[in-house]
């Protein structure tokens, strides 16, 4: 039988060491190792950024603050002079000063890791161009990411029982497959339709595992959970709570009120009406449809111990519907004469992926692009709260023994520990980002390099899923079409509630916000 699955490791969180004593468990469980490695990467990036600050850093910081004050003063003058002829030259001056401020900010902090970490770039007809940026080769960045990941995961895998000498060659092959998946994903037509790298990473893995079978020497590096959980800890640094208020109260209502209602409503519909055979599949589909597609699916699947096939199915559904909605929604919005603000909020709250949201919003106009991308960004931040809530709900209610009361110790034992790293990274970076110009600049510099590693880790995770998955197993989950019905019904609810809430917020309760955004 063409199966490369490891039967002892069926879920995304098959952590059997939950009852190991705390200090030992912290070095013997994949969950904790994801926290240590993710934390180490973040610490290295922070330390590297801090210690490579230029000698005249305080002067540069003062210059940025002076420039920011100057821009603010000019804006105040522009508001006073709004009706006069002077306003046009003033707005040109403001634009110039803003560009200057942007340049000064970009020179404030630089992450020394950044030149050594890169992802394949967009290309049109020659795949070798994926390894060029502005005509210059980025191979050093790809090799750097490979070297960095090999050392980190090799170290972790050795502690988890693998042999370093066996892990390294296997990891290099898995990394090469991930690179190929990335090259497939960055072809410009593929990018145009938002067919993201998880799809191609899965495809390559599935092609191998379902034809010639995954060779056993590759197994030491086929570690889906390890890569995904470490990537999620790094993703935590990008979940900045300060961004939550970017659209004020209307944004909070559209993103943080509708989204949980749709998530819970769809999950309950799946359980009570459709009677989904798997709770975790139900929850992962509900989360990726209501929150933000692939990234939400990854976080929720890891938090609720979903099976790899369930994550694969949820992501495939999300990607297909994202393409359809990205193409169909803008013409419909234009045809009914909806305003850019309302249309943007509707798109941002319903299309799963950030890139597709921006593409669809951009088709309506610049205001719609701003609103759509911001609503999606606020939803992106919801991932942290959703992952934490799902992890608690799962261990406290779904996995508890029948008739037993939720017990705090039991919850702690079973709680997926990587979620703690994810939440801690989010809190730390949210505080750093909100601490002023210096903190914001440092957080941006650090995230600039860690997001590259995070993307590599997720890609490695999806290649591993493909290498472990049997097509026949996958088709079993599609039986009866229930996942498809769940997605369609959930998305219908999402479309209805998001439109209603966006209309209420931007057209009725906060029309001044819509007017300000339309300027």
């Amino acid at each position, binding site marked *: 039988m063409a199966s490369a699955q490891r039967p002892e490791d069926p879920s995304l969180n098959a952590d059997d060491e939950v009852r190991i004593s705390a200090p030992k468990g912290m070095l013997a469980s994949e969950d904790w190792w994801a926290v240590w490695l993710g934390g180490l990467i973040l610490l290295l990036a922070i330390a590297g950024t801090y210690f490579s600050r230029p000698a005249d850093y305080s002067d540069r910081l003062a210059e940025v603050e002076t420039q920011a004050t100057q821009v603010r003063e000019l804006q105040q003058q522009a508001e006073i002079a709004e009706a006069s002829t002077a306003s046009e030259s003033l707005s040109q001056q403001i634009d110039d000063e803003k560009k200057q401020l942007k340049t000064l900010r970009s020179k404030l902090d630089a992450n020394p890791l950044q030149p050594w970490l890169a992802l394949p770039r967009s290309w049109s007809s020659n795949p070798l161009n994926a390894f060029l940026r502005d005509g210059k080769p980025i191979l050093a960045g790809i090799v750097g990411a490979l070297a960095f990941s090999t050392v980190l995961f090799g170290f972790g895998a050795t502690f988890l029982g693998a042999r370093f000498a066996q892990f390294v060659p296997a990891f290099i092959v898995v990394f090469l497959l991930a690179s190929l998946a990335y090259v497939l994903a960055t072809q410009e037509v*593929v990018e145009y339709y938002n067919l993201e790298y998880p799809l191609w990473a899965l495809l390559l893995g599935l092609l191998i595992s379902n034809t010639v079978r995954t060779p056993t020497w590759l197994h030491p590096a086929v570690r889906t959970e390890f890569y995904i959980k470490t990537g999620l800890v790094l993703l935590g640094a990008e979940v900045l709570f300060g961004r939550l208020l970017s659209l004020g109260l209307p944004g909070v209502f559209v993103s943080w009120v509708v989204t949980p209602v749709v998530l819970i409503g769809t999950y309950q519909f799946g359980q009570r009406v459709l009677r989904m055979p798997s709770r975790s599949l139900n929850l992962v589909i509900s989360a990726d449809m209501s929150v933000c597609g692939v990234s939400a699916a990854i976080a929720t699947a890891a938090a609720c111990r979903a099976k790899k096939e369930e994550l694969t199915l949820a992501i495939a559904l999300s990607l297909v519907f994202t393409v359809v909605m990205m193409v169909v929604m803008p013409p419909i919005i234009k045809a009914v004469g909806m305003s850019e603000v309302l249309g943007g909020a509707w798109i941002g709250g319903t299309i799963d992926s950030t890139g597709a949201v921006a593409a669809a919003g951009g088709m309506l106009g610049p205001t719609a692009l701003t609103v759509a991308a911001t609503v999606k960004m606020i939803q992106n931040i919801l991932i942290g709260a959703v992952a934490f809530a799902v992890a608690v709900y799962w261990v406290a209610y779904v996995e508890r023994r029948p008739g037993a009361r939720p017990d705090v110790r039991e919850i702690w034992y079973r709680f997926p520990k990587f979620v703690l790293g994810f939440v801690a990274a989010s809190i730390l970076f949210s505080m750093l980002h909100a601490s002023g110009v210096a903190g914001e600049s440092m957080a941006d510099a650090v995230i600039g390099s860690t997001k590259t590693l995070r993307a590599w880790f997720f890609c490695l995770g999806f290649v591993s899923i493909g290498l472990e998955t049997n097509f026949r197993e996958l088709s079993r989950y599609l039986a009866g079409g229930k996942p498809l019905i769940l997605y369609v019904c959930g998305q219908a609810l999402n479309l209805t509630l998001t439109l209603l809430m966006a209309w209420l917020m931007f057209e009725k309760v*906060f029309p001044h916000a819509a007017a*300000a955004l339309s300027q």
Partner: protein
Amino acid sequence: MRPQLFRNNTWDRRLGLALGAAAITWVWLVALPWLGGRPELREDLRWRAARGINAGAMYYTELEAMPDIAAHLDELHERHAEAFWRVSERSPEPPAERAR
């Protein structure tokens, strides 16, 4: 010694892999570049690139346009803080009126 990948596999399995690889090669090196060369798609691609819209972005930190959008919103909040936080009691002037 032959590598395990080929040692334990039948011809049909190897053929399956070869066909899959050939299909991927043809689609990515022939079909997609041809599709991407169509003028309307090229125009759309240029338009998106000019606005920092990379449709492949999975998370908001990957969207090239996001820093400018965030800066624009910060500015709007400074100038119209009440609009985003206080429930309005009267309708705003339409943008066209204000511009006049």
